[in-house]
């Protein structure tokens, strides 16, 4: 026990001087991390929206689409990273493509559930008020589906921010590179910094999405303040 205590005292858990002198590195990795996590969310949403709409419009294609997305969801990101590495090389794409697939698999069921949650009487009222198909979709159906879609978006965003770090194992991992670096040098400080920054990033991104939902659903605010 004495030797352990001595070793711990000898090597501080967190070396603040190292943190203070590496601000530029953290900024650079943080920027890379944000890019690697956000691009898949945007692509995933861009693909999931029309796909979800198609599934609502033609209910018959939904079961096979759902089966496919649930298989895609199960694909381990580390396996996809290394398989893609040979095609796409040491480029952001190697991480962005698997994470887009992951985001997509989370979002499609939510888009479908969200659109299906629009009550029939609302749809009929909108039609009776003269809303045409596409206009009803944009101004009535999608806004009502926002909370459910947003729930999926939050899960996917937070998961992506955490998963990007796994990319460090193939050399493209944003803040995750602090983990591989710290592990190889038997040096804990970068690992602490990486974990803290990733959690802060995830919490911030989640808060931004919650705020976005608040902006997009003014009726929910009105209801809450009345109640």
């Amino acid at each position, binding site marked *: 026990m004495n030797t352990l205590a001595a070793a711990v005292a000898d090597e501080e858990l967190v070396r603040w001087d190292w943190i203070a002198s590496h601000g530029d590195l953290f900024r650079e990795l943080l920027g890379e991390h944000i890019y690697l996590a956000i691009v898949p969310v945007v692509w995933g949403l861009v693909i999931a929206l029309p796909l979800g709409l198609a599934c609502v419009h033609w*209910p018959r294609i*939904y*079961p096979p689409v*759902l089966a496919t997305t*649930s*298989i895609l*969801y*199960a*694909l*381990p*990101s*580390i*396996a*996809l990273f*290394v*398989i893609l*590495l*040979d095609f796409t090389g040491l480029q952001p794409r190697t991480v962005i493509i698997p994470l887009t697939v992951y985001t997509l698999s989370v979002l499609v069921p939510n888009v479908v559930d969200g659109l299906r949650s629009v009550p029939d009487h609302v749809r009929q009222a909108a039609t009776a008020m003269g809303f045409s198909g596409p206009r009803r979709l944009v101004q009535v159906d999608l806004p009502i589906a926002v909370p459910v879609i947003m729930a999926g978006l939050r*899960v996917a965003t*937070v*998961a992506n*921010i*955490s998963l990007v*770090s*796994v990319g*460090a*194992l*193939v050399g493209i991992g944003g*803040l*995750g590179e*602090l*983990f*591989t670096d*710290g*592990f190889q040098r*038997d040096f*804990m400080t970068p*690992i*602490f910094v*990486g*974990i803290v920054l*990733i*959690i802060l990033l*995830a*919490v911030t991104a*989640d808060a931004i999405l919650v705020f976005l939902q608040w902006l997009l659903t003014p009726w929910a605010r009105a209801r809450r303040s009345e109640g």
Partner: protein
Amino acid sequence: MNVLQLAWDWLSDPAQWSGPDGIPVRLVEHLWYSGLALFFATLIALPLGLYIGHTGRGAFLAVNSMNAARALPTLGVVVLVVLIWGIGLLPVLVALVVLAIPPILVNTYAGIRTVEADLKDAAKGMGMTGRQVLLRVETPVALPLILLGMRTAAIQIVSTATIAAYVALGGLGRFIFDGLARRDYEMVVGGAVLVVLLAIGTQVLFALIQRMVVSPGLRRPVGEV
């Protein structure tokens, strides 16, 4: 060269299927880590989720802390725990359990919480105690959601157990990391394909379990798995 071809060449080589670093040994290691992690995660998260769902106590704290836990980068947790405790199964197990608790807890809680009040009232009216309501009514009704949480957890565990090889343990990840180190791409892809197959197998297994243990009266219409 086609990836599937590469993976097939490697997988169909009989040399991979025997010996202390053959596929069967690595697969058993992988399943051992994953099974242990799922067992301990369930042991912790299921009773907690049932308790919080049934009593409503601590729900706000539980749900929010679980959302934060989802943001924990597993790779970071694994390497940190290994640097603190040294190489071994325990550190990896701790990281896998931490990763698997949130989905099980949140889904169990949500499942119990969403059981219809009428149903619970009827059970109470029949003279059931709180414990009986929980075990005989709420839990079976919440089972689809509880199993969904366990499936999510199991898939994440199986995927992440790959990282165990990065910190010098066994499992299917060995092929990926050894292959990367030796620039043996066939091995990397072969290992990756095995991990993918195992994850899909886990998914299918849980779908089957769900079909077997969930009461037929609770089956949801197709499309709402």
